[in-house]
């Protein structure tokens, strides 16, 4: 296993500390600009989230399934822009790290340095750019590193063994283990690839490894946390925000928290 070669930033430091206390990491995803999204962030933070991932809606979200597509379209229709979302975030007084998820054209259009600065000014510490793979990431990462924005890299089940260490090497904050072959969205079962992916990554890095994409409820989060350091929950959170509102998100985050605080019983 390889230790991180870089100096851990605010997100990584915080998540390492959380892990070191024996607590599993919970990161809910919330689409910025939806009705009640700021309340949802506060509710999630108050009910056991360790960080929040905020999605900046994009017109063509190719990594997202129907729920987050619908949320993105709705937020855009309601007039959300990267600027309005980051502006509203400034007023959020939660004490946990904020991460932004956005597609690369949002970053490219704003300009790397300008975008990284706008994140920092809004109190965001990290970025996930799902359509910016390792080979295309150098320019953005250079700007982000210098401004102190941690770029989370995704590791996918299709990556051959020789590729994973290179992805991990470039990752800041944590490593995002893509739980299945497919786009975001709720599934009835946790894919076998979720734990397998976490296992492969835990073998090669001591950075926090979080599983996301297809972790759809408290029970699946608990299963994934048997190996992973934590989980990201997207569609299951956003669906509740769309259908039932911010209180429902807070309650759900509390349920998942309780589940991952109780390890899965193993039959030996």
């Amino acid at each position, binding site marked *: 296993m390889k230790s991180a070669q870089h100096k851990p930033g605010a997100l990584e430091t915080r998540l390492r500390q959380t892990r070191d206390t024996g607590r599993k990491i919970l990161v809910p995803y919330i689409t910025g600009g939806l009705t009640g999204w700021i309340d949802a962030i506060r509710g999630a933070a108050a009910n056991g989230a360790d960080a929040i991932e905020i999605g900046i809606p994009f017109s063509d979200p190719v990594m997202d399934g129907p729920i987050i597509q619908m949320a993105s379209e709705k937020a855009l229709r309601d007039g959300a822009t990267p600027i309005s979302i980051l502006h509203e975030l400034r007023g959020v007084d939660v004490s946990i790290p904020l991460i932004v998820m956005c597609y690369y*054209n949002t970053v*490219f259009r704003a300009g790397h340095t300008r975008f990284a600065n706008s994140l920092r000014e809004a109190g965001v510490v990290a970025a996930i750019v799902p359509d910016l793979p390792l080979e295309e990431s150098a320019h953005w990462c250079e700007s982000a590193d210098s401004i102190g924005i941690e770029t989370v890299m995704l*590791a996918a089940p*299709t990556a051959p063994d020789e590729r994973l260490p290179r992805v991990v090497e470039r990752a800041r904050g944590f490593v995002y283990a893509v739980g299945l072959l497919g786009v975001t969205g709720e599934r009835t079962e946790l894919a076998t690839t979720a734990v397998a992916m976490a296992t492969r990554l835990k073998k090669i890095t001591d950075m926090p490894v979080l599983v996301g994409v297809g972790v759809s409820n408290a029970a699946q989060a608990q299963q994934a946390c048997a190996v992973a350091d934590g989980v990201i929950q997207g569609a299951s959170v956003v669906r509740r925000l769309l259908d039932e509102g911010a209180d429902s998100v807070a309650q759900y985050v509390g349920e998942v928290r309780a589940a991952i605080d109780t390890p899965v019983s193993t039959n030996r």
Partner: protein
Amino acid sequence: MNPEQVPRELLTPGADGRFGEFGGRFVPETLVPACEELERAFNEAWSDSLFRTELDDLLREYAGRPSILTECHNLGAQLGIRLILKREDLNHTGSHKINSVLGQVLLAKRMGKKRIIAETGAGQHGVASATAAALLGLECKVYMGAVDIERQSLNVFRMKLLGATVEAANSGSRTLKDAVNEAMRDWVASVETSYYCIGSVMGPHPYPFMVRQFQSVIGKEARKQFQEICDGSDPNIVVACVGGGSNAMGIFSGFIDADTRLVGVEPAGGAAVGRGTPGVVHGMKSYLMQDEYGQVQEAHSISAGLDYPGVGPEHSYLASVGRAEYPSVNDQEVIEGFKLLARAEGIIPALECAHAVAWIAKEAPKIQGQTVLMNLSGRGDKDVAQMMTILGDSLS
């Protein structure tokens, strides 16, 4: 730019998949190994004489290549130019799409894939994909915007007849760009067994390069054929319509080193090169119609095949270095172009190609006496129902 400094070479992108600053591979991590595998597989196949022979045989015996040139004596005289058409409309399935699809599906089979995914706008690429999948025994799923399914119902039926499944893309503008999104989402989930057969010179590397190589047969044939009928000379102007831009890259590739103007005609409502700015969508960096925040704008064109807010990265490169020009024409001009070719020459063009006809008619006063080679990339049968609604009783 000084015309002498304009590059006159066809680029082969390196490992970064770039044509100048354009192109690249902006895909989810899940798809990176698949793109790398495809790049290796294509390069191997393209330099394998057995693969090339098999493809050439299919192009000749199945698609009907080489396609002929037709000189438009009537329209040429009317416009004061010498106008010659490259007849890709006469290929099997009625457009140039078959050139790339036969190559790609043959490659998919060689790679051991069992299933083809494709997106389609007007339905021409979907029909071609369904055709090649039927011929070569692969399963085929075609994504098509719900709006396009409505305006191209004949092609939807054709695809189904050929054994393909047609899935409606109901997100966003429900046209070609959304069909591409859906196809990419399918590919992310099925990458181990499926081959994504992209319909144009777009998408992540190696697609823009690979599809151009498969379509370069148009330009190779056309240059030789043109020289045969025009005493060894090259045309003054080569014209093609541009949506993603595969038929244009196909014919341009044959004339890149010639002393020939290359003109790609965009629809006014989807003029990515003409009115767009550099952006990144569908795996590539290229000119894109987008707002100030990078949200991709919806294209609006009478022709479903050109209803796309982006363009292949090689076109962005050719525009940026001044080697090709990208004017646009509006829907009304296109309707006139459609009628013009039908009445003067007895050839009903696809609405996409009617864009090229419209530009030629408009430009004619400035290019008197010149030779113009136009790629007639598809036939208009698929558009007849739509045009019947538009023109109705106005035809005498």
